[in-house]
């Protein structure tokens, strides 16, 4: 049982994720170059953080057309798990696998800090090791993490228990303090915080472990 990490030109958290999954959690991991279409034998796929294709035009707008992502649509339809972290979350919204969009932080700063997050839904396996209302600590590092969606979409996300994580103290102006959401089926999860940077006690928190472990559970 292994997982894949997509590598776009400009990804810069691909190795961090592998360090966490393989090094900290013993999950067999392979890299998926953005031009591949072969997702065979993968339990889950991670879209890592970074600046895919330079994030020109809009974050994630160009990555959306990568060959590997054509395969991912089909993979998700068949129930495959996809975790989008930071830039990966932006790509998932551009791709339409998750609703809404990530826009420039309200205060215009690139924010790099540990944040407290509240678990808003344990409906999916990504966070079912937690209880609703639990607090976890994960690092964020983004300039464009302000989640935006229409009021109709927000209501849908709330009604369908798809807001997996929300900020305790909203750092970027996201609608309804949203930090991470899932699709309806629950096999796609996008979040701005970086669970892979919270897998070793030396880096301050191991709250990211359960999220990455759910890639193979």
């Amino acid at each position, binding site marked *: 049982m292994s997982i894949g990490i997509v590598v776009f030109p400009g990804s810069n958290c691909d190795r961090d994720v592998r360090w966490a999954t393989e090094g900290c959690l013993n999950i067999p991991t392979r890299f998926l170059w953005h031009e591949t279409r072969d997702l065979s034998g993968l339990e889950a796929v991670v879209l890592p953080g970074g600046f895919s294709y330079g994030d020109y*035009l809009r974050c994630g707008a160009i990555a959306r057309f990568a060959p590997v992502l054509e395969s991912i649509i089909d993979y998700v339809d068949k129930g495959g798990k996809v975790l989008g972290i930071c830039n990966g979350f932006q790509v998932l919204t551009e791709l339409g696998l998750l*609703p809404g*969009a990530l826009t420039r*932080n309200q205060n*215009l700063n690139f924010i790099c800090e540990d944040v407290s997050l509240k678990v808003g839904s344990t409906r999916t396996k990504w966070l079912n090791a937690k209880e609703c209302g639990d607090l976890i600590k994960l690092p964020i590092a983004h300039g464009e993490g302000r989640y*935006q969606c229409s009021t109709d979409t927000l209501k849908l996300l709330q009604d369908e228990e798809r807001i997996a994580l929300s900020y305790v103290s909203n750092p970027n102006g996201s609608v309804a303090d949203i930090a991470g959401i899932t699709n309806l089926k629950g096999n796609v999860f996008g979040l701005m915080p970086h669970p892979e940077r919270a897998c070793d006690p030396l880096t301050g928190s191991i709250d990211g472990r359960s999220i990455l472990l759910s890639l193979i559970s």
Partner: protein
Amino acid sequence: MPSFKAQVLVSLRPSVLDPAGEATKSAANRLGIQGLESLRIGKSIEIQIHAPNEQEARRRIELLSDRLLANPVIEDWTLEMKPLPSNRVE
């Protein structure tokens, strides 16, 4: 085949907050520019395209604008197009 010059203007939808525009507006105030009621920042994309006719050129650029240049969740776009004199590249 005739060439056309197109300009696609991408702007944030009115409901979407534009922090960069707000910051620029504050700077305009500091510069002493008076009377600014709103300032919103968008993108202008200039395109040259050859196509059998204007209708086809327009169809292609509308598709491009819808699918790539703008994100309909947060952005609107408008298109202006004019024919270019033949064999002229600007």
